[in-house]
């Protein structure tokens, strides 16, 4: 009987995938490894945001639309929250409410140890978007995207 119960339980599990965390807490080294894995095969758009950053929340829908726009292209979008770790569920809710799915990251560790590795001119203010071209070069976008067109236009320039 128990075997059957377990079998049914497992089968049900396949119908309803456990809603695991959409946000993974990572150190900078771990995050860098994630994007280095894909450098070369895809253009990467990395957006740094947080729930307490109003302009960040305002531009997230533009990124959501851009994801659809580049669905069949070699573009990978990575969203990195700089929220406090104990606000992780708040960040997840913010993403869910805006229709984001898939894997996201929350970056931990002293920002003074990793900001310069991304961009020495960056003061750590967000939103901050970094585009990594297939040739590995960085395109910095340290500003708010006011429209989907503005974002899509920039990404298109670097997708080839």
């Amino acid at each position, binding site marked *: 009987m128990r075997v059957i119960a377990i079998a049914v339980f497992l089968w049900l599990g396949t119908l309803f995938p456990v809603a695991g965390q959409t946000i993974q807490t990572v150190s900078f080294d771990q995050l860098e490894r994630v994007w280095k894995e894909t450098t070369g095969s895809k253009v990467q758009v990395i957006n740094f945001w947080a729930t*307490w*950053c109003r*302009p960040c929340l*305002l531009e997230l829908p533009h990124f959501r639309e851009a994801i659809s726009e580049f669905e069949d292209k070699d573009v990978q979008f990575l969203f990195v929250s700089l929220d*406090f*770790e*104990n606000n992780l569920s708040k960040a997840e809710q913010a993403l869910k409410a805006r229709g984001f799915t898939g894997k996201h990251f929350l970056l931990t560790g*002293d*920002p*003074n*140890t990793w*900001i310069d590795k991304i961009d020495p*001119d*960056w*003061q*750590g*203010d*967000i*939103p*901050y978007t970094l585009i990594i071209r297939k040739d590995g070069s960085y395109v910095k976008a*340290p*500003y*708010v995207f*006011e429209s989907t067109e503005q974002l899509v236009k920039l990404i298109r320039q670097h997708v080839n």
Partner: protein
Amino acid sequence: MLMSSSVFKTDGLKPGDLARDFKLKNVDDKFVALRDYKNAKGFIVIFSCNHCPYVKAYESRMEALNKLFAPKGYPVIAINSNDVSRYPEDSFENMQRNAKQKGFTFPYLFDETQEIAHFYGALKTPHVYVLEKRGDDLVVKYVGAIDDNTQDAEKVEKRYVEDAVNALLTGKTVKIQETKAIGCGIKWKESADK
């Protein structure tokens, strides 16, 4: 136009620069200037506010810094420069309420015109400038973050401000003179000239 504060990245006081005094209203309605502190050896100026979660995470540490260093000649001087029209939570009345609730023993000043934040080149809250008195001059000796862990005071390893002030008090060189301030951007008035 929505702005990110990266516009200011090349402005702002750096270690070695001369800072300026100011006269700003404190939460007790009296005006405070650095020159009022005749016996101070220097100051821990912290650009701050009421609403920012980064500041909230640091408030007890700011108080601890004042308790530790004011008796030694380096009082904490907190300044709120945020645009109240966009962020009413950072109003003067709320500063008074916040200071009272948290039991701040340091001055919490209102930089209503944002002139002081502009001069210092403050970008964030919290953003620290450790100043050393040299005759009539105020020399910047450290700029940046308070320590290396906003979220967890127990896990702090690098006490940037504490180490800087201790170095100054013992006549040693400040080892880490500059870090990037981590926090919410200072809320500039829309008409501000950049």
